[in-house]
């Protein structure tokens, strides 16, 4: 049994699990890209699927483990994707700024990468106000998880996931807008 499998079995160990998953996802993404011709895109879920296969022994691939794993992987994906979006956004602007200046970004015409950054900023605020709702956003948006998977991972009903997700989207957008007008 490998380390990740052990971690999956020990609840409350998510920091280490996250670190493990994060490393593995980056490794996989790089290996994957080395093989594939340019222009092909890599779906977030495909990446997580691969990490799942790589990290977890066959016998431990139960549905519960999987949901837990995908939950942890979503957080790792968030870091990877936000980093990537920031990097690209920075490159485009040629500026050396750490954060995207929100004032520069028009939501209506925001580039895809800027959307990720904007959503992430608003998500940070949501994390303070309503951590559970924020977790659902991370899983669905960054982890590409279905309502069913999120429900299984958090031990709540699919109906709740759906409801929270609908509310979170509207709220995040509202905050993005507010921030835009404040800046």
């Amino acid at each position, binding site marked *: 049994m490998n380390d990740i499998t052990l971690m999956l079995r020990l609840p409350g160990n998510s920091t280490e699990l996250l670190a493990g998953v994060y490393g593995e996802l980056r490794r996989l993404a790089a290996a994957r890209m080395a093989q594939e011709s340019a222009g092909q*895109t890599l779906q977030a879920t495909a990446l997580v699927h691969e990490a799942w*296969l790589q990290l977890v022994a066959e016998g431990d691939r139960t549905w519960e483990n999987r949901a837990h794993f995908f939950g942890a992987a979503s957080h790792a994906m968030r870091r990877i994707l936000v980093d990537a979006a920031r990097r690209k956004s920075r490159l485009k602007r040629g500026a050396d700024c750490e954060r995207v200046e929100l004032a520069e970004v028009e939501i209506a015409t925001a580039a895809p990468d800027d959307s990720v950054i904007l959503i992430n900023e608003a998500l940070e605020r949501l994390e303070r106000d309503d951590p559970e709702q924020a977790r659902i956003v991370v899983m669905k948006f960054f982890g590409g998880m279905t309502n069913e998977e999120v429900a299984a991972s958090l031990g709540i009903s699919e109906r709740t996931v759906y409801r929270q997700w609908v509310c979170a989207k*509207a709220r995040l957008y509202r905050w993005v807008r507010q921030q835009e007008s404040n800046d």
Partner: protein
Amino acid sequence: MPAAKQLEDSLFFAALHVTDPEQRRLFLDQACLDDPALRESVEQMLATHEDADRLIDRGRDAIALAAAEIRDFAGAVDLREQPDQQIGKRIGRYTILESLGEGGCGSVYLAEQREPVIRLVALKVIKLGMDTRRVIARFNAERQALAMMDHPNIARVLDAGATETGRPYFVLELVRGIRITEFCDTNRYDLRQRLELFIQICHAIQHAHQKGIIHRDIKPSNVLVAMHDGVPVPKVIDFGIAKAIEGRPADETLHTLNEQLLGTPAYMSPEQAQPGRLDVDTRSDVYSLGILLYELLTGRTPFDALELSKIGLDETRRILREREPQRPSALLAGLNAEALKAVAEERRTEPARLLSQVKGDLDWIVVKSLQKERARRYDTANGLAMDVRRFLHNEPILARPPGRLYLLRKLIRRQAGLFVAGTLVLLALTGGLAASTRLYFKAKRAEIRQSELREVAERSLANEGRMRKEAESREKIAEVVILLRQGDYEGAAKTLGSMENRPRQPSLDGSMVLRSVGEWLVLQERWQEASKCFLWLLEMNQLDSWGQVTLDIQACGVVLVENRDAALYRQFCKEAIAAHTSSTNGSGVIRVLKSCLLLPPDPELTALLEPLGKTSEAWYAKLPAHQRTEWGLIPLSLWHYRKGDYARVIELARPLAGSSAGPDALVPTVQAILAMALWHQGETDKARVTVARVRDAIDRHFAIPMRVGDRSRGFWYDWLFARILMREAALLTGEES
């Protein structure tokens, strides 16, 4: 979480589901009466939620494109370990998602099918070195027979084909389970539980045999078990595959040089191990079942798998042909104390007790299954199952040796009537098998020099009528799917109604079709047709271990009551109760409970419902406070109401007593129950006022026609549920419109 945010969220979500602008305005007027800031927030969210979707979509595009960025900064990573090259590839209509494991004859993947239905399947790619064309031809020859298998404990084989590199592949129904031996050990199943599972497997194999299919490779890794609603469901996988990939090498002269043993020697019958392997029949499967039983009892196979894999082919054959296996109890007795204790613990018992349980009848059953001479085995898988069943019922088994058999006969004579009945059942069960076995042998004679297709052709001829019916009903379902896609609900309902042979095989298509057409019929208030749809759906659910059973029960319950068929409704209740009486899944049980309380239950039903009521109460008591005023409240208060505990109902429903109805039916339903309880407690005025409010909310809901699949105002059956209770409350309080 700030309460303000929670309130905003709830109002936004509720208002979102009031699609009519005027209605929505009214709703917000009511809800945000004295809080303009709240109203502004909610309206802002409502006005921009579509823009929010666009923002999220754009973000998702970025995520899909993120690979390039990741490459940019991934830096020095180890590229030596390549992930499985198959992941993400397409094979035929299927996209490989992940590897599920490596078997002896190939790799198994989780794959996604998109056409004609979206579903996950298991894809088995056979190792190189097989004659692909012949494998596929052999599979196609069995295809129709395989398609006729229809059993809850058999995983379906859906398709076969060749990959680009020329490897044959099979597409199988996806089974999420673990091998039976592992399942029993990790769950510490005792002998009785193991034997119950084993009987189900025998029945599955018997079903296949009656359709003329022999499995040929029964072993733990082909029998997977998954828990469903707290019930273990075994599934036999890989039917038809052993047959397809075995067979004679292309060039007969190379026969003896090229031959290899396909399958797993430890589970293989002596005749299967013999050169040529032509002479295999259903009793070979009985032998393998015997080995499986052996392993379930003792944790070991009679001939050690490792040992067999080390010795040569000839030696393996000799052992299988000549060496008598130890009796299970003898094997257990020969283990050292520690090993025996471990085996006993996995079976939740003590060593001495395990030995005495296995010794005797179970020994005999295993020995009879493992006879070298197949004429001395059980004739059928069913015969084996019946003997195991007899053991469980403490009845004399048939496998006993002659001395015992004599006593047994005497016993049978004492109960002559029973025996005749038993024989008739046996004849009825084996009749189908005898016919297909006869055909099998008839065909086999022709097969010596001719194509195997011939065999299937003959069998097909014999089964033509039955097969045509089966095929017709599947076609009809496909037709209905197309009609539904075109939005032609009337046509879909008509086609369904005209079907003479209902396929009971659970399928994504079948369940989807019944749910959609059923819902449409409900919206047309065509109750009788709707109740047919939902009863059929429930029938299908019985065989489907993964269906949304309790939701369908809810739908069916209200439709039967609306159809005013009290007898049928009562029957439905009894069956639903029986199926869930020992379930520990609280959220499922409450749905069954409330569906059975739609009409006042008679004393018999009330007694039957008692265990469900207990489970529900325990479940409800564990809910976090805020969830106690949600959907769980309905079954609980209705249960107390039906039992006459009115004070309790009033106490339970108090938090919602003054609430106004949201987009879904929760508040009106609770208030309807509350009104009836109030009336019984003598608070007649309050009761009447409440009923009037409920009626108002329900009328407002039904004033706007619902569309099929529209969940924005809650589930249709929740609203019908509310309306049925409202009628009862109105009758009771005299508050009729």
